């Protein structure tokens, strides 16, 4: 009985550590050139305000008005992953999406608007 419990605990711990490793390495998929890109609109004070409007129009339906997600498949955007990401990482992710997990590609938005969303997301961290 104790051995079964220890086995289950080891599996659970292993799975948690693997998940954490996957989460922390997520941005490692971002090409170096994209990762290094700074937000060209970062110096514009209105960029985050405009980004909030774009967020409301396109992102809020899934990630909710407070960007907390739905606690299920739509993740919160107040997260360590976003805090540690570079501007370029986030812009790359918005452009690519994660189609296999339900996040659409936002390459359909003009690049300037994706940078405005990046400014907004950084401002709420």
């Amino acid at each position, binding site marked *: 009985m104790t051995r079964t419990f220890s086995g289950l605990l080891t599996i659970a711990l292993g799975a948690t550590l693997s998940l954490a490793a996957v989460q922390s390495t997520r941005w490692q998929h971002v090409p170096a050139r994209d990762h290094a890109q700074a937000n060209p609109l970062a110096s514009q004070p209105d960029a985050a305000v*405009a980004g909030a409007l774009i967020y409301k129009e396109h992102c809020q*339906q899934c990630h909710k008005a407070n960007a907390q997600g739905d606690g299920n498949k739509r993740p919160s955007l107040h997260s360590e992953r976003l805090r540690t990401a570079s501007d370029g990482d986030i812009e790359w992710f918005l452009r690519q999406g994660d189609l296999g997990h339900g996040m659409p590609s936002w390459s359909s938005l003009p690049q300037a608007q994706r940078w405005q969303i990046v400014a907004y997301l950084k401002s709420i961290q």
Partner: protein
Amino acid sequence: MFRKAIISSHTIIFCLPLSIYTIGRAQEKPYFVTYSHDLEEPGNLEIETKTALARPEGGNHYGATAMELEYGTRAWWTTELYLDGQTTPQDSTLFTGWRLENRLRPLMREHAINPLLYIEYENTSGADKTILEVTGHDGQTDLAESNGQSRREHQHEAELKLILSSNLKAWNISENFIAEKDLSHAPWEFGYAVGLTRPLRSAAGSRECTFCAEKFITGIEGYGGLGDTFSLTMRDTSHYLAPLIGWQLPRGARLSFSPGFGLTDTSLARVYRVGLAFEFAQFGNWFHGSNGGGE
């Protein structure tokens, strides 16, 4: 009396989306014939009417409307149902058929050129004049027949498209290659559509507005037939060039307009198109007890 019937049928076609309009978010290119690689967001339902107004040589003016119900099944898969109708003054108003299509994105990453596969089955009559694509040797003589004659012809067609599309900064460039086959007896017919769009301003303003430049998307599309397997030639094929403008209305609705100009004798001289779209966010969740729309 007849005129009244036409007006009421048009009123129903145009006002149905308005009457059920609650939450709308639409951000698509104002193409009428060309497809880009933009797919519907998963769980969202878009309802759009696409109306074509034209007069073929030797025929009457007509208005043909396709009502499109587009659902984001997955982030990489969009399903659409079209319901087509047509009205010709001094003739009749009729339902002309339906189409079911699927667009699938085989590559999960964004590339310089993004391929999409399009598969469609259509069950329409010969009276369908929506001109959602031009293939083979389609021409204005097909559109000049009376509804009484043309409705007797039934078309069960399969259509395949290879959609190639690129988003570069604020521009979209799309190319579609079309192969269509009547499932009974006819040869494979081929066609193409190409398009280019760009918003008037790429960055968004910091205030909500209706008439700002970023709310308007302009562009141009060209489309036409490329013959069929019996006669793989450009002779007697139709080709059109059509400027486009799309206006992102408040609450996410979208209005599009495009005057198209025929480039060959086989083509219609002009075809005017009007589109009106509404998007229902997270429609799939309506049946799971929670509206996914952001509050």
